[in-house]
Structure formats: structure tokens, C-alpha cells
């Protein structure tokens, strides 16, 4: 890799698949004929496959490949059985490795993570005993399409285990294997796997051995509670000392917090393996010229979390540091946005825009249907009598052409379909094949190429619904195929072209909140080339960033604040409103109109702004629990207050003795949830105290110490520097009481097994965070909040920064409490997502949206109340109120149409007329049988 940002030249080595991806139809015949076995890596070696195979049926690309190291022909020049077996002649042993040079403007590194070495696993009996498995092996066992069809089995005797142990932190938080960090995901997946195993077999007894349960993510604690209370999974805080075979079982010896040793036998042991750096991290870093951190993950900084040390090269996902799926997806969007900003001048220069012939008007024509029945190789054809189904179509009303096809989805079949459309002047097309979920867009594309509106297509699924589910009843499957095809043709007689609607977009963003999230988002959107309004309710920008005085990695938050403010002031695309709040919002994605209330002296001035998208970054604030004498004694501070004191200029700013109490008001007290940041905050402050005065005493009373990721290093450093960490149980919380001038902390020490009383100079409370004004804002924006009043994302994993209302995005503490680096990433991600409609300049609307017939509408507004996407509004027509679909917001779910009492609403492509025709055609079967 050579060159500069905006102009890199990269060389790739492309390995051959030995199968032509354009020809392979993924029928699987080659695998059944391939004579050689191969250990199935996709199934973690728990199953066998063949050198010619596909990892799993849903793989993308859906093309088989040959493992050259196992193939008899490629190794020994023999065999070649697969070549004549393949009916589409896709196998090509002539393919050669290829070197290709590409010009790219930016690079995003997302190589993921690697595996914990087996030498580490061996310490827990892995390799020596077959019933000690890794969590990823266990994951495959649980999977219905996995090696044992979803049944958990012991590898030693194929028996079903009755007692399973999970051991946490294998290859994580372990300097013995040079992985000092916490992998941040294992607690979650262990709980998940344990719960799924319990769902498979409620009788199975599961124990999880852990040091701290780190379910610090948004609403993650709920799952832990559910695991314990609903599923009866046991959580044992203990360090596992030894894993040994014992009779037919495995004996685990462990040491609990009170110093006791115990042992228990289990049928199976699951090692919760951590995320290691990718095996080829060094090589990648050398080739692309960026630095790694001490753990061989990508080196980044708190304030620029996705920038590698080489400009123009970004990083996303687990390679940036161990993380879960939602965080990876968020980072991906953020990295995409950063790369886009970098290459702003070249936007749309490289994309390929496809053009189509003009659409042929068909409304006035008689219905001319073409039907194509697919064999799907043997996938349909080996069960369903496809020629019979094809014959059956002959003479059906409206059908002017019908044919069988071996693979309807193949490239040459598309050409045939186009040709037949022209030759027979077809104006409706029915394909009886596989699932519209995967293949409808392909056939619709073919119709567009042939000059037909894409909605003149109807798909019948005779694979999933016939050949697959009735694999052992070929006759019934054939009959059912005929029924479905007949119904599809009946519907096709009524389908009409639907217009491709687009709605123009006001290319501007409104950002609510001028803290770290809002400022970052505003800059990211402005750097993409769009204007934004940045609205802050306080008199100046900064928000929670003003409460931060030092960071664990030594970087200076004041510098970041000054830098952000200066860049915002210098950017003429950003208009800042301070002392301002949102008063009203109207419109929809692409076309919002909002009213801002701006404080002016004692009064208030209203201003209306037009914008296409909204980013919510209203932040959070420290919770103030009415507990532990907070507010009643000057000696009791929150962590933020302590940080301020430690960062100040006072001579004795480091207290001689400090007791910190974690989860003060959180995790089941005032706040049900974990605030994610408090443990790291406490460790950060403890280290600051030790830095200022190494002789100072610091005691941290905690429940689970959640210094996930690299913060684990700081936790270890704090212990090494003499900070004392003592866990407490939720039913035995520490007490803070006033005794004269003194503040006394009383707590139970599990190691001493006795009550301890201390009189520290300062009691520091880790109080957790609450969102600001989200309830009121959620009413204005019509976006839901969680039970804890944080904004709810559209989908936890797939759409972590979008909200249920199109065009509204969320980031920062308004989404959930999180540390600064995650706030920055999330803000960049929200900005990237918000920029998408702005870049396009229009919002595309799927033609299948709902439509209101205003003559029939009685204005009851039932649909408005039922619509989950705020996509229907009431409008005045003369003196009457009528419903109207906001096409840009409609998701075509059909709830409105199915509830309308006067049938005034219809769904494009699913009208009552069409559905009735299908139902009638289904009932017409009897007649035909009697007549025929």
C-alpha cells in the first residue's frame, strides 16, 4: 500500500475459488459427490464437510469454493469428479491466483479479532479432555443447523450433559497470557449461551464462574437478572484454580471471595474465550503502515477513536479494541462517515448509476401474463414435478406464455425472461421459484431492464413452501405448487404499475445538544459538506465535557473542548444557537420544520428552521441520590465533584483517605440500570489520588468492577499502587452515618468475614447518570424512550443510532450512559447516518406504501393512532378531516389498511382486490378437480 490520503494505491492478492461465481447456483451437488472428507472449520471442527463446499447455505456470495489444500485434483492431479457433476459447468480448475492494483482514496481496517492461543486454553484442560469446549464450539452445538442439529452433546460419549460450567475470563484479564485487557463481550455471550441451553433443556444445571459480571451495556443487566431469576442459572464469584478429569466427569476446583476452596463435578465445561488480536495484525500493520498498541490491536486515541496513526487509514470493529456487535456496527458507520468526509470532493464520482429503458404504459392493455416455473437444479425439481406444474399453467386466464427453467435466477435466464417479454408482449410476469425475500429484487430488476414497471411482477415460492417442507410427499408438494401458482396468476391479473416516488430533502441538519456528542456530530455533518443548526440550552457549548478534567490515557479534555469549539466557530456551515430549546417539530424525513425558543434577556424569541434530519444529542447528567449523606455532608462527594477537586489548585486536593462507593443509587436502587462509566471513573480518580499522594489511602467498595476493555489495565495499576477493592453484596450495602463531625462508613469485609468501620476524609459516590429532558423531547419527536427514559434506537444491533421515526438519529448519553470515546464514535455514526438522506437529496419511497381513498375516509383517525411510524396524518379537506399517508415515512406494514373500518386504505401491491382474487383462486381448486 502506497500513497497519500485521497490517493492510495493498494495491491491485493486474490486467491481462486476454482468455481465460476456467475455460473454456480449453489445447488450443492458437487459436495455430495466430492469423495474426500475435510474438517469443517465453520463448525469449529465439530463436523465434516468436503473440500468443495460452502460454509453455510446463507453465505454471501452464495458460491461454492474448493479448498486447494484438501482437493484431490489440486493436490495430486486426480479425481475431478465434480467437473462433470456440475450441471451449470461452474467448476474451473484453470483459475489462477491474481494480483490486482486498486486506486482508493481511503482505507477502513476491519479485520476483526483473533483467537486465544490453545496454550492458554490448555491451562483449563482444553485439548486434554474432550468435554472441555470453547464458547464458540458451544455456540455451534446450540445451533439448529450446527453439527448436532442443536443438541448439546459431550464429545467424549455423545451423551447429553446435565451439569455445565462456564469459566469466564479465559484469555482475558490475564497477564499470564499477555492479555491484560477485558474482552468486553464474554459475560454477555456466556449468559446468552446459558439461557439458550436452558431453553433447549430446562433440566440442565448451569453454573457460571466469574470475577465480575460485566453486563454494562444498555439494558444488559436485565438479561443477567433474567438468567438468574427466570432460568435459574447460578453465578459463582470465584477464581478457577484447576480443571481435572474425575471419573466420567470434570472436576472444577475454585477459590471464592472469602478465601474458601471448593470443588464440584460437571459433565461439560465451556471456556468463555476472550477476543485476541487478529493473527495477521502485525503483517497488516506493516503493509498499511499504521501502529498497533501493546496488545497488537490497532492503536488509537481517546479523542480520535477511529483514526489509525496513518492519515487516511481508519479502523472499525473489534480490531480497534474488543467490542460487541452494536459497538462494531456503530464504529462502522462512524468510520464510513469519516472516510466520506475525507473524500468529500470525490463524492459520487466513482459510483455506478444504472439506467433503464422508458417504462411501457400497460394500463390500457389486455393482461398478458408470462409464467416461469423453476427447477432450482434439484432443489425444487427433485420433489415437485415441475413439468407437470408448467403444463398445468396452460390455458389459465391471462397466461399467454409459460416455460420451465433450470435456474430462474441465473444470468442467462434473465436474458430469456427479457426476450420473452418482448417476443410475447408480456405485461405481467409470474416466477414460481424460491423466496421473494431474497430474489424478488433480482426479477424486478429484469422487468425494469425490459421496460416494465417492477410492480408488474409476482413471485410464488414453491421451494420453501413446497419442495422443502414437503420433501417426503412429492405428489402433495406438486399439488400445492399448482395451487400457489394458480393463486399467483389470479393476483397477477390484478396487479398494476406503481409509481416510484421520491421526496426532495432540505440539505440541512438540526442537532439538539451542544455537548461532546452534539459538537462532534455537527462537525462531522459540516465536514461532509452540509449545513447544520446546533442547539444548546445552556449559555455556552461544552455540556458534560466541561465536567471532565483528565483522562486515563493522559489526554486533556479541556484541549478537546477548546478544539471542538474553535472548529465549530470557524466552520461557516454550522450555526450555533445557545440558550435555545426545541419547542415544536413538524414534517417528516427530508422536510422537517422546527420552532426553536431562544432566550433573549428575560424574554424568549421563537425562530423557525427548515431541515432534513434531526440528531438528538441532549446528553445526561449525574444522578443525585438521596442516600449516603450526599448533600448533607461536605465530606460526601460524587465522582465528578471529586474529579473537580483533584484537578484544582488547592494544596491538599488529594484526600488522605477516601472511600468510594460504587453503584450508589444504581443497579436496583433509584436507577435500575448500570451507568457503564462509574467504575472506570472511580479507578481514574483513585489513580489521580495516588499520583498526587502515593501514601493516600483509597478503598473502593463495589459490586462488579466493570472496567471493561483497556480500562482493565488501569484497574490492575490501581491495585498495584495500593488501592484496595472490596466487593459488597446487594443485600449488605455499605452504610454512611454521621457521628459528630465525622462521617463513618460501615461495611462488611468478605475476606475478614466481619463488619469494618472507617472514618475517611472523603466519601466519593459513583452515582450513575440520568438522561436530560428526554421525556418531553420524545413527545415532540414522537420517538419512544426506554423504561429508564433513554431514547430507544430503531434496532439494538442493526440500527443502533437511528430511531423509529425516519430522519431522527440519536447519540451520546441521550441514548445511554457511556464514556467519552464511545460518545465521540456514536456521534460520528449518527452524523454519517444523518448525512445519507442529505447526500441523496431525495428520499426514495417503496411503491408498496399505503394510500388513502379520501372519498371513503370518514376521518376517524384510527389509522393515525395505530401507525407505529407516525406515517399517517390528518389533514383538513374543506370542513372534513381526512387521513393522508406520509409516503416518505410509511413502511408498508399494512396495519392501517387492515384496521380501516371503511376500507378506505389500500396497500400498493397488496390491494383487497388482489388478495381476494388470490383467495378465490385457492377456493377454485375443488371445481377444477371435479371438472377435470
Amino acid at each position, binding site marked *: 500500500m502506497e500513497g497519500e490520503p485521497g490517493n492510495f494505491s493498494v495491491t491485493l492478492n486474490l486467491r481462486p475459488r476454482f468455481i465460476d461465481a456467475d455460473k454456480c447456483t449453489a445447488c450443492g451437488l458437487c459436495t455430495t459427490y466430492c469423495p474426500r472428507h475435510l474438517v469443517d472449520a465453520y463448525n469449529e471442527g465439530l463436523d465434516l464437510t468436503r473440500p468443495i463446499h460452502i460454509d453455510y447455505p446463507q453465505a454471501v456470495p452464495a458460491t461454492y469454493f474448493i479448498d486447494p489444500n484438501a482437493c484431490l485434483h489440486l493436490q495430486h492431479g486426480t479425481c475431478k469428479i465434480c467437473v462433470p457433476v456440475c450441471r451449470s459447468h461452474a467448476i474451473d480448475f484453470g483459475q489462477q491466483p491474481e494480483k490486482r492494483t*486498486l*486506486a482508493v482514496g481511503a482505507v477502513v481496517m476491519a479485520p476483526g479479532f483473533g483467537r486465544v492461543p490453545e496454550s492458554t486454553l490448555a491451562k483449563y484442560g482444553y485439548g486434554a479432555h474432550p468435554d472441555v469446549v470453547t464458547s464458540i464450539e458451544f455456540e*455451534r452445538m*446450540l445451533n439448529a443447523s450446527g453439527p448436532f442439529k442443536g443438541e448439546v452433546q459431550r464429545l467424549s460419549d455423545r451423551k447429553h450433559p446435565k451439569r455445565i460450567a462456564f469459566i469466564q475470563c479465559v484469555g482475558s484479564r490475564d497477564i499470564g497470557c499477555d492479555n491484560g485487557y477485558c474482552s468486553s463481550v464474554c459475560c*454477555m455471550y456466556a449468559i446468552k449461551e446459558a439461557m439458550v441451553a436452558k431453553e433447549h433443556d430446562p433440566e440442565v444445571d448451569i453454573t457460571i464462574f466469574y470475577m465480575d459480571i460485566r453486563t454494562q451495556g444498555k439494558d444488559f443487566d436485565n438479561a443477567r437478572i433474567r438468567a438468574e431469576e427466570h432460568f435459574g442459572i447460578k453465578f459463582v464469584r470465584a477464581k478457577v484454580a484447576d480443571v481435572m478429569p474425575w471419573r466420567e466427569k470434570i472436576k472444577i476446583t475454585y477459590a471464592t471471595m472469602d478465601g474458601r476452596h471448593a470443588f464440584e463435578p460437571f459433565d461439560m465445561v465451556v471456556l468463555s474465550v476472550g477476543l485476541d488480536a487478529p493473527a495477521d495484525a502485525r503483517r497488516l500493520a506493516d503493509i498499511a503502515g499504521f501502529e498497533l498498541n501493546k496488545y497488537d490491536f490497532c492503536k488509537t486515541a481517546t479523542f480520535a477513536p477511529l483514526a489509525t496513526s496513518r492519515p487516511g487509514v481508519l479502523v472499525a470493529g473489534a480490531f480497534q479494541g474488543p467490542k460487541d*456487535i452494536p459497538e462494531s456496527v456503530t464504529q*462502522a458507520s462512524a468510520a464510513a462517515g469519516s472516510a466520506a468526509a475525507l473524500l468529500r470532493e470525490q463524492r459520487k464520482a466513482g459510483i455506478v448509476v444504472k439506467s433503464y429503458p422508458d417504462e411501457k404504459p400497460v394500463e390500457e392493455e389486455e393482461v398478458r401474463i408470462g409464467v416461469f416455473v423453476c427447477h432450482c437444479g434439484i432443489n425444487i425439481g427433485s420433489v415437485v414435478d415441475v413439468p407437470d406444474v408448467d403444463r398445468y399453467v396452460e390455458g389459465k386466464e391471462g397466461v399467454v406464455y409459460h416455460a420451465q427453467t433450470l435456474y430462474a435466477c441465473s444470468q442467462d435466464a434473465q436474458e430469456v425472461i427479457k426476450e420473452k417479454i418482448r417476443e410475447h408482449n408480456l405485461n405481467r410476469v409470474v416466477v414460481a421459484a424460491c423466496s421473494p425475500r431474497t430474489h424478488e429484487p433480482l426479477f424486478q430488476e429484469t422487468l425494469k431492464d425490459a421496460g416494465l414497471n417492477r410492480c408488474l411482477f409476482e413471485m410464488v415460492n414453491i421451494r420453501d413452501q413446497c419442495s422443502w417442507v414437503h420433501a417426503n410427499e412429492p405428489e402433495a408438494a406438486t399439488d400445492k405448487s399448482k395451487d400457489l401458482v394458480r393463486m399467483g396468476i389470479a393476483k397477477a391479473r390484478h396487479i398494476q404499475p406503481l409509481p416510484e416516488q421520491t421526496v426532495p430533502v432540505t440539505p440541512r441538519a438540526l442537532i439538539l445538544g451542544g455537548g461532546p456528542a452534539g459538537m462532534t456530530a455537527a462537525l462531522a455533518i459540516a465536514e461532509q459538506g452540509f449545513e447544520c443548526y446546533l442547539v444548546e440550552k445552556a449559555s455556552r457549548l461544552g455540556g458534560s465535557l466541561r465536567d471532565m478534567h483528565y483522562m486515563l490515557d493522559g489526554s486533556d479534555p479541556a484541549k478537546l473542548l477548546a478544539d471542538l469549539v474553535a472548529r465549530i466557530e470557524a466552520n461557516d456551515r454550522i450555526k450555533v444557537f445557545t440558550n435555545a430549546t426545541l419547542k415544536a417539530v413538524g414534517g417528516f424525513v427530508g422536510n422537517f420544520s422546527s420552532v426553536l425558543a431562544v432566550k433573549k434577556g428575560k424574554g424568549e424569541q421563537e425562530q423557525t428552521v427548515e431541515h432534513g434530519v434531526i440528531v438528538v444529542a441532549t446528553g445526561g447528567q449525574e444522578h443525585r441520590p438521596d442516600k449516603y449523606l450526599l448533600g448533607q455532608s461536605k465530606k460526601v462527594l460524587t465522582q465528578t465533584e471529586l474529579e473537580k477537586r483533584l484537578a484544582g489548585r488547592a494544596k491538599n486536593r488529594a484526600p488522605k483517605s477516601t472511600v468510594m462507593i460504587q453503584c450508589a443509587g444504581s443497579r436496583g436502587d433509584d436507577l435500575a440500570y448500570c451507568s457503564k462509566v462509574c467504575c472506570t471513573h472511580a479507578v481514574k480518580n483513585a489513580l489521580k489520588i495516588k499520583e498526587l499522594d502515593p501514601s493516600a489511602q483509597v478503598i473502593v467498595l463495589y459490586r462488579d468492577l466493570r472496567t471493561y476493555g483497556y480500562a482493565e489495565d488501569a484497574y490492575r495499576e490501581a491495585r498495584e499502587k495500593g488501592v484496595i477493592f472490596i466487593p459488597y453484596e446487594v443485600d449488605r450495602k455499605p452504610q454512611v452515618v454521621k457521628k459528630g463531625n465525622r462521617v463513618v462508613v460501615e461495611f462488611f469485609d468478605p475476606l475478614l468475614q466481619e463488619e469494618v468501620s472507617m472514618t475517611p476524609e472523603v466519601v466519593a459516590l459513583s452515582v450513575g447518570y440520568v438522561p436530560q429532558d428526554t421525556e418531553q423531547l420524545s413527545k415532540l419527536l414522537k420517538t419512544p424512550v426506554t423504561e429508564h427514559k433513554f431514547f430507544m434506537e430503531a434496532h439494538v444491533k442493526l440500527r443502533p443510532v437511528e430511531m423509529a421515526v425516519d430522519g431522527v438519529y440519536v447519540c451520546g448519553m441521550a441514548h445511554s450512559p457511556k464514556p467519552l470515546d464511545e460518545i465521540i464514535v456514536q456521534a460520528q455514526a449518527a452524523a454519517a447516518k444523518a448525512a445519507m438522506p442529505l447526500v441523496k437529496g431525495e428520499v426514495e419511497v417503496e411503491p408498496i406504501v399505503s394510500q388513502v381513498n379520501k372519498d371513503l375516509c370518514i376521518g376517524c383517525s384510527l389509522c393515525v393512532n395505530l401507525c407505529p411510524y407516525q406515517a399517517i396524518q390528518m389533514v383538513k379537506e374543506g370542513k372534513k378531516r381526512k387521513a393522508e399517508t406520509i409516503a416518505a415515512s410509511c413502511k408498508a406494514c399494512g396495519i392501517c389498511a387492515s384496521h380501516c373500518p371503511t376500507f378506505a386504505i389500500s396497500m400498493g401491491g397488496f390491494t383487497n382486490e388482489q388478495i381476494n382474487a388470490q383467495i378465490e383462486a385457492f377456493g377454485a381448486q375443488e371445481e377444477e378437480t371435479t371438472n377435470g
Partner: protein
Amino acid sequence: MGQTASERKGAVMVVGGGVAGVQTALDLTELGYYVYLVEKGAAVGGVMAQLDKTFPTNDCSL
């Protein structure tokens, strides 16, 4: 259209076809850029494609 790979403007290379790489690639196309998604395996999906369910909702991972 008509540009060859070596002269294509506004292209980004994404290294790795796991969930992070795939999401980056998808978002870049939405933002108006041509993407080369480079994966060393035979399919995209990464480790997520090996997972049975996902925490905490137990949604199917595929």
C-alpha cells in the same frame, strides 16, 4: 461508468468482511462512494455468521 479500477475516483477499500466491514461498506455506498470490500475467507459475515443467537434479545444471528 466506463472507469477502470485503477482510475476510479472516490473509492474506498474496506479490509475485512465481518459485521464491521460489511456495515462500513454499506454505509459508504449510501454516502456516495464506490467500495472494494476485501475478505480473506470465501464469504462475508465473519464470526457473527457462526453465532447461533445474539445477546440480549436472542435474535437469530444470521
